[in-house]
């Protein structure tokens, strides 16, 4: 075998364990889900094997699914926006910090050491009728009776922001950290104020990081079902909750498969658009 041929094969040999894992753990289950989506649920909860378009017809034509999908995208968009507004200053502070950035980054990663569900449930102890916030407000005499703060769309968004904010901060930080600070100094020396230098130099250069963080927050936010389950009221459901209900409560795996593929298609389209205009490289940097 020639040297060129061997060199051409080497990356594939090194990649083969990862590719095998992706094939077995992602593509094979995905194929099963695609196949399932064309089956039907029987009256007893079993599956009727065949090729039926009923689930797809229902998922695509029923206004109920469309409305919940739009509401899910709305909640994910608001969450992403709040994460960007809150995350950018934090990332900027870390990137420009003169001290040890590692400690600040470590603090940022700390929440990941606690289970996502526990973190979500912690809001019940903070915002509940007998929670910390109400207790403090009553103690200070600001309110006489506890305020009902939990179990609505706002608390769902709050829970999602709590979960997703570190993803945004990390991505923006990676982007800001790569910008040469001499560029801001150069802008200042040419007469720009610090604010102008930030707006016209730093911010545009950090946009790929902001977009990568936004994409991550949006995709993860739109796919969640735990947060609305724990912090939402009776009506606060997101699309992933429909998938959960179809598969778990109604034992309708075929419809649940069609719905999950529908969500995957919408979020996949967003990723493709992002990749078309910004490329995945920035996202990889942020995740790395």
């Amino acid at each position, binding site marked *: 075998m020639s040297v060129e041929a061997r060199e051409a094969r080497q990356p594939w040999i090194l990649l083969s364990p990862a590719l095998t894992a992706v094939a077995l753990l992602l593509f094979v289950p995905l194929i099963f889900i695609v196949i399932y989506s064309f089956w039907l649920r029987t009256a007893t909860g079993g599956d009727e094997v065949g090729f039926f378009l009923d689930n797809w017809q229902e998922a695509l034509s029923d206004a109920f699914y469309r409305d919940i999908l739009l509401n899910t995208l709305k909640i994910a968009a608001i969450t992403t926006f709040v994460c960007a507004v809150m995350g950018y200053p934090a990332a900027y502070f870390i990137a420009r910090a003169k001290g040890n950035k590692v400690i600040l980054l470590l603090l940022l990663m700390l929440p990941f050491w606690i289970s996502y569900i526990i973190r979500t449930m912690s809001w019940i102890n903070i915002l509940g009728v007998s929670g910390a916030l109400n207790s403090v407000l009553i103690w200070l005499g600001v309110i006489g009776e506890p305020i009902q703060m939990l179990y609505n769309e706002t608390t769902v968004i709050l829970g999602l922001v709590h979960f997703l904010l570190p993803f945004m901060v990390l991505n923006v930080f990676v982007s800001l950290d790569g910008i040469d600070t001499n560029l801001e100094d150069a802008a200042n020396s040419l007469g720009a104020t610090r604010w102008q230098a930030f707006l016209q130099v730093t911010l545009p250069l950090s946009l790929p990081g902001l977009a990568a963080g936004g994409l991550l927050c949006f995709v993860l936010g739109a796919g969640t079902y735990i947060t609305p389950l724990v912090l939402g009221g*009776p009506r606060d459901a997101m699309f992933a909750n429909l998938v959960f209900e179809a598969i778990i409560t109604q034992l309708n795996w075929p419809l649940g498969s069609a719905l999950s593929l529908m969500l995957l298609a919408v979020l996949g389209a967003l990723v493709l658009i992002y990749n078309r205009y910004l490329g995945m490289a920035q996202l990889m940097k942020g995740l790395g």
Partner: protein
Amino acid sequence: MTKKMDNTTRYERLRERYMNGDLDRRSFLGLIGAAGLAYGVTTPFARYANAQTVSQVRFDGWGGVVSEAFREHAFDPYTAKTGIEVVDGTFGGGDEYLSRVKASQEGEYNIAHLSGVFDYARYHNLGLSAELNEDNIPNLEFVIPKLVDVFRKVSDGKLSCVPYDYGTTGIAYNRKHISDEEAKEKGAMLLIDEAYKGKIAGWSDWRTRLWYAALQTGQDPNNIEDIEAAWDAVRTHRDLSLKYWGSGAELMSLLAEEEVYVTEGWSGRIYALQEQGHDMGYIDPPNGMGWQECLFVIKGSPMEACEELLNFMLAPETSIAVAEGQNYPPALDPQKVDLGDKIPSLPAFDPTGTLEGLTFADPEYWNGNEQEWSKTFGRVQKGY
């Protein structure tokens, strides 16, 4: 005569040959890989081969105080007696668990603490039932006959479970805010009382929602004639509710933290709250929801070990201890077994052993409508 070699010895010999230089690295790794592949392929079948030497049985139940009672009074003593370990898992509801069992390999799940005859019928209709050898469960004779008969009807006279306890899903309320007189007077209507808007909760289970909607619209829960009126009652409850709860722990937390003042609740969990010192009231309105739970053996389980565990759990001393721990009356017939002092004080307890005072869900009726109603509830819940 050749001595049978186990896998560890095989590996050690192979490693020794490799370390001694008798085997090149490529061959060594190749043989390890082949052994791993062979093990992976045969493991699902090895499960059946090992069925006669059972070392553990898996049991799934409702978690919380119920699981604690099972662990302390049944599983640990059973393991001490037989050497068979009981691995216990939990679930939030029968639907969720059925989905898990459906996705599992045969034999992975063994015994489940199922609620209601309708659940038993669903498992049976999906081909998940096993046939118990009742000769191995002599303690079945202490069980209330009516509880056994309803299961036999579903599975052609045979049993895939033993009845274990019963209870009700009644109305639980905080006495600081709602008096006993008011609760009795309003009954099921208390759950759709405008005066408590934002302080009402309910279980996110479609059967319970429709059952109470039937009561609120003056209908027989086992024969709802005006289903649209019932759905409207579900909507009214939804709009007045703060939260649908999904587990016993969440139910107890919502009441204990005073997030809500009234909800329907499981009799044993409310009794547990009362025992903890919370001033909770509990009533079963006329035609309130009664249910019986069973220990269901899933197809593919090691039958003899499961039957031995069921018999152990039905022994009066075990069954009474578990009942006192989980606060649900046992399925034991009070006419045959002395149930002690605490059990007669538990909510839903029937001293006659006939259970005539409780209304149970008709499995045929509810399972016949399950597909349509569970789906409709999913929509009503979200504002439709």
